[in-house]
Every structure is written in C-alpha cells, then in structure tokens.
C-alpha cells in the first residue's frame, strides 16, 4: 500500500493490531487493513466478541492501535497525542451509540448544541439555530425543550444522531444504533443513516447485528476473531 491515503478514501487502515496488555495479553484486532470511501455506508458485522466495536473505536480515534496506521481524511494519525485526537474527533467525526448517552440534566436542544459550543466556531444564536434545524430534520422540532427522559427510545436515538451531526462531521460512527430499539424505530434510524450517506455525502460506518440494517448498507465487512473475514454472513 502507498504511504499516503488517496483522496477517495476518508478512512484508511493499514495493518492495524490492537492488543490489551495484561498477564495474558488479549488481541482485539489482528492485522486489519481497510479502505472506506467518502460517502460510503459501511456495516461492520460479526459474531459477539469478534472485535467489531473495538475496530469502530479505533476508526473513531477513541482508541489507538498497538501497531499499524490509521488515516482520517488523508491525515496520518499515528503518534497523535490525546488532545490532537480529541480535536480531530470534534471536527470530523460524530458518534452514535447503542444507548443514546444524552446528558440527562440538559434539554434536547442543549444536548445537540453541546458539540457546537465545544468547537466554538458559531455564535450562541447560530448554534441554537443549527440545533433547531437538525432537530427539525429528524421530526423533533417540537421536542427541543424536553428532557431526554421525556422522549421515547427512538426519539432519543434521533436526538443522538442530530448531536453526532452537530459539527457537520465527515464520518458518522454508529455502534449498534438500532440495538436497543423496536423494529419500527430501528427502521427509521436505519433510513436516516442511509439518507445521510446517500443524500448528504456523509460516510457512515455502523457496527450492527441487525440483518435488515446491514441490508441497507452499500458494503458489509465481516470481522471474526479480530480479523477481516469477507465470507462471513449473519446466521
């Protein structure tokens, strides 16, 4: 592989290994190489404990590989300290988790505004306007003043997606985004994520167990025992 990422790929992973140190070292990810194109909707699938989430955390710069290199938007992140990785996450990546993880003390609107205010590029008024616009896009316009606890599971997950989009990131990383939802809400979230990739040119990388969800993706990557296994299919 070349030393620099080409422009078409937003995420490039080269021979990445992640090992947890300890009395018995555990290898979570074993020599994985990947290229994810801009605007792609990719699903990472595999049996439980295969290393799907660990790979997602590495792609999303929450964790650093023991070996190998990861490029995000053409930038080699090897050797970046915690602060630089954090800044990169803030500007270019958005996370959606299985559990919504909204801050319970803040209103829906404030939750969406949080990353915008952290980045600090918009005035408070502009940040509020953007948050309203995002919530409106996911049919949550009239819910903005509520606390997360006053919303349904599907609504919360939509708020979480709106928050992930707050700083207009290049990549949305989703970890079992429908894992905790009923089938109707799950389908809704899936359609939203697919729309982000198709209509807005966002790159969406999702870890899932859900076959229906995976069927919507452009590309499926199987992970078994920490390695890429292209032949893996959900049972």
């Amino acid at each position, binding site marked *: 592989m070349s030393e620099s990422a080409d422009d078409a790929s937003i995420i490039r992973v080269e021979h990445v290994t992640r090992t947890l140190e300890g009395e018995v070292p555990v290898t979570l990810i074993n020599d994985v190489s990947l290229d994810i194109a801009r605007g792609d909707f990719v699903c990472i699938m595999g049996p439980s404990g295969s290393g799907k*989430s660990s790979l997602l*955390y590495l792609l*999303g710069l*929450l*964790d650093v590989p023991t070996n190998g290199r990861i490029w995000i938007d053409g930038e080699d992140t090897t050797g970046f300290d*915690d*602060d630089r990785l*954090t*800044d990169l*996450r*803030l*500007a270019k990546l958005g*996370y959606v*988790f*299985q*559990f919504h*993880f909204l*801050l*319970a*003390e*803040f209103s829906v609107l*404030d939750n969406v505004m*949080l*990353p915008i*205010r*952290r*980045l600090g590029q918009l005035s408070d008024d502009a940040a509020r306007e953007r948050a309203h616009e995002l919530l409106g896009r996911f049919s949550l316009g009239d819910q903005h003043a509520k606390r997360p606890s006053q919303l349904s599971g599907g609504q919360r997950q939509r708020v979480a997606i709106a*928050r992930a989009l707050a*700083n207009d990131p290049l990549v949305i990383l989703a*970890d*079992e985004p429908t*894992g905790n939802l009923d089938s109707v809400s799950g389908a809704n979230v899936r359609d939203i994520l697919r729309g982000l990739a198709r209509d807005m040119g966002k790159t969406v990388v999702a870890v899932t167990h859900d076959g229906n969800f995976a069927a919507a993706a452009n590309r499926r990557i199987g992970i078994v025992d920490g390695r890429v296994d292209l032949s893996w299919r959900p049972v």
Partner: protein
Amino acid sequence: MAIALDIALAHLTSRKRQTLVSLTGVVLGVGFFLAVSSLMRGSEKDFLKRLVDNSPHITVYDEVRHPHAQPAAMQWPDAAVLVRNVKPQRETRGIRGWPVRLAFIEALPGVRAAPVLVGSAVLSFAGRLEGVTLSGVVPEKMKHVSTIEEKMVAGSLEALAANPNGIIVGQGLIDKFSLHLGSTLSVVADDGVSRPLRVVGIFRTGNASYDESQAFVLLKRAQSLLGRENRINRVIIQLADAYAAQTTAQTIEAGVDYKSVSWIEASEDILSLLLVRNIIMYSVVSAILLVASFGIYNTISTIVMEKTRDIAIMKSMGFHARDVRHIFLLEGLMVGVLGSCFGLLLGVGLMWVLEQIEIRPPGVVEIVHLPVWWGAEQYALAASFALLSCVSASYLPARRAGRVHPVDILRGAT
C-alpha cells in the same frame, strides 16, 4: 468555559441535597471563622490599646543598658581583671543634664515627652502610715503623655500646677485613709522631714494596687522631698505612632546615652503570647473549613462516579481531559464562592450579635461590650481559605474525571 460552567451547574443542581450540605459546611466554616477571628483580634487590639494607652510608649531610665567597663578591663580585654575596693561615686542619682537631653527628645518628630522624678515616700494621716511611689511631674507636660488626666474623678492636674503643696492620690488611698478633696496629709521623705500636702486631685484607674500606691506632686516638690534637687530619673514619652516605639527608642537611646525602653520591648512576653493565641485560634477555625472541604470532596466524588458515562460521551464528542477537569474544579469553586458569600454574611451577622452582648464582670460597675474587630483582612482571609480548601477538595475527583478512558466505559456499557 461557558459550557463547563453550565455542566458544573447542572451537576450541582442535580444533587441538590448533597450540594446544600456541602454548601452549609462552607457557610458555617466561613461564618464561624469570621466570628471567632473578629472576637480574638478584637480582644487582642483592645488589650494592646490598654497596654499602649496606660503605659508610656517609651520610658528613658537613669540607667545604662551595659555598665561602663572598668578602665583596667578595657586595657586588657582578654584578661581576667579583678579590681578591689571599688567605691561607688557619691553623686545624686538621676539623668545628668536632663534639660538638654529632654530638648533632644522633644525635637524628634511625633514625640511628646515629660520629665519625671520617681521615688518612694511614706504618707501619714491620722496616725496611719502608707508607703507610696511618689512621682514628681510637670503638669503641663504630663497631661500630654499620660492618661492620668482622663482618670481623674475629682480635682485636676492643673490644680497641682496652681498649688505647689498639692498632691494627687488614687481613689484606693482615699478610701483607705477616709480622705476627701482638700484633706491635708503628711508626706515623710528620705530624710525624715515631714511636710503637709493638700489633696488637690483624686484619680481612679481601675487597677487597685496602682490606685493605692501612686501619688503625684510637682517635680520641684518631689525634688526637694527626695533630696535630689535639679534631678529627674525618668523621661516618659508618648508617640504619635505607638508601633514606631521600637525604632524611636533606639534613636533616643543612641542620642541620650540612657536606657530607653519601648512598650514593645517591655511587653515582649505578652506580644509573643498574643501571637501564639492567634496561631491556635486560626488553626481551630481553619479546621472547621477543612472538615467542610471533606464534604465537598465527597459530593464531587459522587458526581464523578455517577457521571462516568457522561464524561465518556463528552470525551468521545471532543472534550479534552482538561475540559472535563475544569468542570469538576468549577464545581468546587462554585461551592466555595457561594459558600464564602453566604458565610461572610453569616459571619457579619454573628459579629453584630456578638457586639450587642453586654457583660458585667463581677464587682465592676461598667458594662463591657465584647470587643469585635471589623478589619477587612479577616474577610479576605476567611474567603480565600474557603476557596482554597474547596478547590483543593475538588482537585482529586476532577483529576480522576479527566483520566476517564471513554473506551473502558463504552465497552462496559454496551
């Protein structure tokens, strides 16, 4: 910083009761810190004021600090010199050439001085005898350096100036001898000569032994009674700034060649006692704030534990470790600032209440108010100590929060 403030506020209000308990700890700590400090400092200042007001700021004695060395000892400084049959000079004791030396002292800025001849005499009245300390004074000068005039209950210092055969005695002596203003009593001095003097003034200081054993006459009268014409043996000095006494005393001692003792030197033991008392007091009141800071540590630690997921999500979202630390340090600071504000109010309230308390010590007619000091430095001290203990109490939980690794938490949650 605004987000950190919002989040910190949200955390504190989400645990209202615990926050309130921590806050109360700080409020009480600051309040009592102030109340106790104002009372202790007030009593210290009151005590010093009495000490400074009731005694001369500087007294020049007819002695030298280091006796003159014998010529033989000066000749052979390293030898053991024994001089036999040294005869003391037969000379009337006192400050030599005192008018010149007094003029030197009075020329110093902010200095008021009065010459005094102090000796002992025996007062006799109706067959009773009482030994007293007789002070010969110049009323005109004395009234500027001594509080004796304020303590007069009958007659005045001026009356002494008008009557060369007058004497001013204390209330204690008056009671003992059943005298009154205008009574005549005899004063027997060194040489056994008895001279009738008329009581022209009565003073009362509140110090019983002083009131029974002191008597004032004119300087000339004292000089003739004590057989020490044209001599004085004390110069009593009062300064505009009592706390400059130490340096002024050194200047005077260098200028007049006689031992000058400032009130600071004379009360060194009391001053060091007051210092120790202050150290004890501040240790005790600081301990209250220290205990309060444990409450804050507890509250913020609980919040950090409860909010681990929030911390993980904030870090994954793009909050730096230091942003997270700031949130929790801010929580400590907010409790500290709020606690200090209310604590200062409580303290001022307590100080006001203390000041209203009236005490009547047994056997004293006068009502005494508790001496409360309102000086600004103690507010600053109480508030800064409170802030310091609050921020240090939140430091450890804040550091722990900053070290939360999102992946560890997310792995556990999913």
